[in-house]
């Protein structure tokens, strides 16, 4: 690849943090440590190990990873606030990071003053800001409040103002860190629209997120980071599958270590939760593709019989669907060990979903064991339609 095609080149980057056992933010502490052999007692934590990848010019690139995987450290190094301990990062062009919206906003200044301050952080001088001031205020829809102090703004107003300034950034490379996590649905929509625009303009964008639907919708390529190393560098679909699979493994582990029965009041264990599409095991489904949830239940309790319930939540936490064996008139399960399979013909909108399983008493009136987010899956973005469910529709436009 020719060098001028590369927007960001990350070459064998490692980052080590020294974490003092007790932070010595005082000279006395440092002196005491000097006396005690001159070495500060600290642990080293390696946040990233030998990371290498390239982002091409005009590419929409995703960085995916769980909390604590090192993705935020990587982002801060790309943004230039942290320096790599080893390796090098080469950025070709002007890069603007959005680690947070409204960086440098001061509550004691008026909205207007904050616009100029924030604009300066993006590299605009007063004259340039004057020229775009009207547009920014219009877009944020807060004309009336511009001469009030920012501390009197609602958080929604602050975010709108910050966002209106942020979209003015004219840099070659933009870096976003889960900006989408804040704000309501209409704000998220604005973010998505902006991403579409950036993509159309052919600007280089790096998006750090754990929203798999956003990764699949926008990114052309992505990397998955786990425990400080790149696990996968490839297509967003594959990344999403791998990520969800890992997340799922972790969920099961934390709920049910080694499959041993837990010694709590309700002695039920749920194991081997698997999701299947008609074509085999999967974590990523096409729209309207059948999802089969399979799992096994062991009853170690004194309950003679029980019912099983299943719920589906979307990434935003909304309860999308729920049912149980009682509703389907299945008699309460008596066996000590059972294999369950539930086939769902789903019409869920693209996005991330979580499966929760509940064990209920023989009248299905009481939950004995509740196992939230036992599995997670993803519905691929294959439509421009919006909302939480899919609907069949037909337009008829009659000219009269």
């Amino acid at each position, binding site marked *: 690849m020719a060098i001028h095609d590369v927007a960001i080149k990350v070459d064998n980057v490692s980052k080590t*943090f020294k974490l003092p056992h007790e932070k010595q*933010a*005082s*000279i*006395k502490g*440092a002196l005491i440590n000097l006396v005690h052999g001159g070495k500060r007692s600290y642990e080293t934590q390696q946040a990233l190990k030998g990371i290498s990848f390239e982002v091409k010019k005009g590419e929409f690139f995703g960085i995916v990873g769980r909390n604590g995987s090192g993705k935020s450290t990587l982002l*801060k190094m790309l*943004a*230039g*606030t*942290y*320096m790599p301990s080893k390796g090098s990062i080469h950025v070709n062009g002007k890069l603007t*990071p959005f*680690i*947070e919206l409204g*960086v*440098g906003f*001061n509550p*004691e*200044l008026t909205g207007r*003053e904050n616009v*100029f*301050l924030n*604009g*300066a*952080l993006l*590299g*605009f*001088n*007063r004259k340039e800001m004057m020229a775009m001031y009207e547009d920014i205020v219009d877009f944020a829809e807060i004309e009336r409040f511009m001469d009030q102090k920012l501390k009197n703004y609602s958080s929604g107003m602050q975010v709108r103002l910050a966002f209106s300034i942020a979209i003015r950034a004219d840099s070659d490379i933009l870096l976003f860190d889960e900006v989408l996590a804040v704000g309501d649905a209409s704000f998220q929509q604005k973010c998505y629209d902006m991403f579409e625009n950036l993509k159309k303009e052919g600007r280089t964008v790096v998006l750090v997120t754990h929203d798999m639907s956003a990764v699949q919708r926008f990114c052309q390529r992505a990397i998955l980071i786990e425990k400080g190393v790149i696990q996968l560098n490839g297509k967003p679909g594959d990344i999403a599958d791998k990520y969800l699979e890992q997340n799922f493994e972790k969920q099961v582990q934390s709920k049910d270590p080694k499959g041993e029965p837990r010694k709590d009041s309700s002695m039920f264990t749920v194991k081997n939760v698997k999701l299947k599409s008609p074509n085999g095991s999967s974590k990523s489904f096409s729209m309207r593709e059948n999802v089969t949830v399979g799992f096994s239940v062991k009853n170690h309790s004194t309950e003679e019989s029980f019912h099983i319930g299943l719920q589906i939540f979307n990434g935003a936490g909304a309860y999308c669907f729920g049912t149980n064996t009682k509703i389907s008139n299945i008699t309460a399960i008596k066996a000590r060990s059972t294999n369950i399979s539930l086939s769902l013909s789903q019409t869920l909108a693209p996005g991330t979903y979580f499966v929760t399983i509940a064990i209920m008493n023989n009248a299905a009136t009481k939950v004995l064991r509740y196992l939230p987010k036992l599995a997670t899956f993803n519905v691929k973005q294959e439509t421009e339609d919006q909302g939480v469910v899919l609907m069949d529709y037909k337009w008829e436009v009659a000219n009269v």
Partner: protein
Amino acid sequence: MFNRIFSKQNRALLSELVRTDFKLRYQGSALGYAWSLLRPLLLFVILYVVFVKVLKSGGGIPHFPVYLLLGIVIWNFFYEMTVQSLGSIVGRGDLIRKISIPRWIIVFSSSLSAVINLGLNLIVVAIFMLVNRVDLLNTTFLLPLILIEVYVFALGISLFLSAAFVKFRDISYIWEVALQAGFYLTPILYSLSIIHDVTYQKILLLNPMAQSIQDARYSLITHDKLVITTSRIFGGGWYALIPFGVVILVLIGGMAYFKSQADSFAENI
């Protein structure tokens, strides 16, 4: 190099940071910016009453009240600039962690706020000179050069302090004490002639602050022989250059330390 340091982006950022500092300083006070002038003036009144009227420490120096005021104004500038800069990097921690701006801009912007205040205070000095009928001297043109020297000295210290404060929070207390000691070791409130031993006078005048304040008084207010300056006491010898050497060393040292620490500010704040 100069073009890169003062690029359009950096200039825009610098001007916004200085504006913000200035707007926030007197936030919520009824008199607002007037405090920039009132504060040194009130301080001056107290010191004037104590040292000129009660203790009579003027020792026959002509225009002693103005002489006193100029010393206080220059010292105040040094005090304000170093104290504000000391906390500037930590105070702007949110910026440093989230956006990659040149770190020195933050220290530079707080130093410029102090410069603006110095400008306002010098207006007060000018007014007092008129009231006291101080004649304009042929050495007045030296004053800006002396102030630049004070600025450079304070900048070197500020760079060091602001970087060290990120790691060691005791620095602010230590510096407070050091400033208090410096205030009395510098002939601001008293005339050097009250010290009888010339050796001590010489030692005191090796301090760049003592040298610059005395030189400023000499160049602006009076050439009276009671104004003991560094070059007068060393009779133009090489020793008289020591304070300038100190200033340059402090600047180089401060810049070097700041540079060595700047990359890890975001992690250490």
